[in-house]
């Protein structure tokens, strides 16, 4: 996690300590201390590996969500989309078993279909929002319901399971390690770097920020607003499909309970990381820290029996609010500047 923060906090390079940028990092650091005090096993290699691997799903999706939110949009459909893509992938791979066998070809076919489906689903969200002139909230609320019911329908209300023979080939994509780090963490790192470059080093990233802060001005500045906004949803779809590709081999199944609330976790990660919900300011590095914070909270709650099980939601809510408060960071200063 340290390498990720190092790459994604450019302001530190300029030796300017910015509490806004550091807020999420401080929150995560405090959480790690609490975790260690509760049980030293929190910092064991196994637990940290589990934590990073788990963060990969929400983290990858949240990188996509950062673009959508920065450009002033919102995508509520990502959790259902992940479930539907996982379901279709499993159906396709099981069907391809007869012709392609349980080997690498089948897994690649599944992965390829996942990416096509993700791009397509993102494009539909984008076009309905921009060309269809329907609020993103409504479009993605609608597709959220559609994808969720599709996976229920495909699974006949039950669970879709990947054939055991294919699972053997596909398993390392979740459980395997490369150079000591689990494969999903590498995907997470790669997506983070690409996301950071796209947001901070390309015209596309600047356009997203411009559209999010004032769409009309961006339009008059000859920015192709509709195309850029559609692209953010397509990127979101791609991120969802990548997350799904590493999710499916974990348990080899998809059901109506897959990916429930992922959309809210992804949005929470983005906001905890300092991106502004109404658009115009986006931070990929913060989003990654946000995803790590969310996963760590759940992990710490499993590491202690001090708090009643029924209050888990309360603790999660409190920590999220405190993390965002730390990140706002102008305590007192805000008042002074207003007056």
């Amino acid at each position: 996690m340290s390498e990720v923060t190092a790459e994604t906090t450019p302001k530190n390079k300029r030796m300017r300590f910015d509490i806004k940028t550091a807020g999420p990092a401080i929150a995560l650091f405090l959480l790690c201390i609490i975790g260690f005090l509760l049980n030293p096993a929190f910092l064991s290699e196994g637990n940290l590996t589990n934590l990073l691997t788990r963060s990969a799903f929400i983290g990858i999706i949240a990188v996509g969500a950062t673009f959508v939110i920065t450009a002033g949009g919102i995508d509520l459909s990502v959790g259902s989309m992940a479930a539907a893509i996982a379901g279709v992938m499993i159906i396709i791979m099981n069907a391809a078993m007869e012709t392609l066998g349980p080997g690498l070809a089948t897994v690649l076919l599944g992965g390829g279909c996942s990416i096509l489906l993700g791009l397509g689903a993102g494009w539909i969200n984008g076009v309905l929002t921009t060309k269809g002139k329907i609020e993103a909230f409504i479009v993605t609320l609608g597709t959220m319901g559609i994808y969720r019911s599709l996976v229920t329908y495909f699974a006949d209300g039950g669970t879709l399971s990947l054939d055991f023979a294919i699972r053997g080939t596909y398993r390392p994509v979740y459980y395997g390690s490369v150079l000591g780090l689990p494969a999903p963490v590498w995907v997470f790192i790669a997506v983070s770097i690409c996301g950071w470059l796209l947001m901070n080093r390309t015209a596309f990233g600047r356009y997203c920020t411009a559209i999010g802060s004032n769409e009309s001005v961006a339009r008059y500045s000859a920015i192709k607003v509709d195309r850029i906004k559609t692209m953010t949803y397509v990127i979101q779809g791609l991120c969802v499909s990548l997350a799904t590709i590493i999710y499916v081999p974990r348990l080899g199944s998809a059901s109506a309970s897959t990916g429930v609330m992922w959309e809210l976790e992804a949005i929470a990660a983005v906001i905890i990381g300092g991106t502004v919900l109404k658009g115009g300011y986006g931070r990929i590095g913060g989003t990654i820290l946000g995803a790590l914070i969310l996963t760590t909270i759940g992990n710490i709650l499993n590491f202690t029996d001090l708090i009643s099980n029924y209050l888990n939601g309360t603790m999660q809510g409190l920590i999220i609010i405190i993390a965002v408060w730390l990140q706002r960071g102008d305590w007192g200063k805000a008042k002074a500047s207003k007056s």
Partner: protein
Amino acid sequence: MKTLKSLSALALTGALALSAAALSAETIKIGVSYPTPTHAWAAGMNWHAEQAEKRLEALYPDIDLILINSPDPNAQASALEDLVSVHKIDALVVLPFESEPLTDPVLNVKKTGALITVVDRGLSQPGIEDIYVAGNNPELGRVSAVYMKGRLTSGDNIVVLRGIPTIIDNERFDAFMAEMEGTGINILDHKHANWNRDDGFEVMQDFLSRFPDIDAVWAQDDDIAIGVVAALKQAGRDGDGMFVVGGAGMKETIKSIMDGDTLVPVDVLYPPSMIATAMDVTVAAFKSNGPVAGRYILGATLITPENAASFYFPDSPF
């Protein structure tokens, strides 16, 4: 001529009305209302209801079963009104979405004189139902505990993965803990895994990091157990004699018990087929020559390799 025509028309209408009345008196209409299957157990229930409908209608030509599922309590209340106004049902088999909001709608069906069978979740007012059919949640907890006591000795360690925080979960958990009391077996901790594979996987991963010595896992549910087993295999701790007890009667779990799995050696039944039992009993209320009203509490049978075959439905989605 004109009067003759109108008279015959009148006679015809009367005859038609009479024959329709005669028909409805002959056909016994039974409405079956339950939640839309959105998770595996409910999908199994839906399948068993459809199977029971086919079987009972083939057996009794004068029985008409009308199956309706609803996505939320409000829609279920509307469905009950339709069953009364459109279908004029003689009996209702209902698995309420939630007890409180469905109590009044079921009471209204009762007022039409229909026989009422309530399944699984009860109503919040006593005495409405004529027949009650349910699984046994406390017994599920107790039977699981009895099995685990039999395999463990004092000083051994258990972790518990609970369901969604609800009354059902409390009943199972409290009965389990009561049975475990005084055995000297340590319950290291219990966390909610929400009857879901992903949460089962993550909670178990954390338990494995936190506790170096675990002898058994009570997962309470087959979906959670699948996540638990994946976490055990990932951590390489599936071979050290640890075992997992789930519950419900998922077909894959029962199949692996039949095949002699040692990691998940048994299962405790909470049958999705209970809706079929309720439909059977309700039909029997019209066809039996003895009284059938009363409470039918199904057993939480321990499924072992010896008896697993009788709980195995390979065509069911659950």
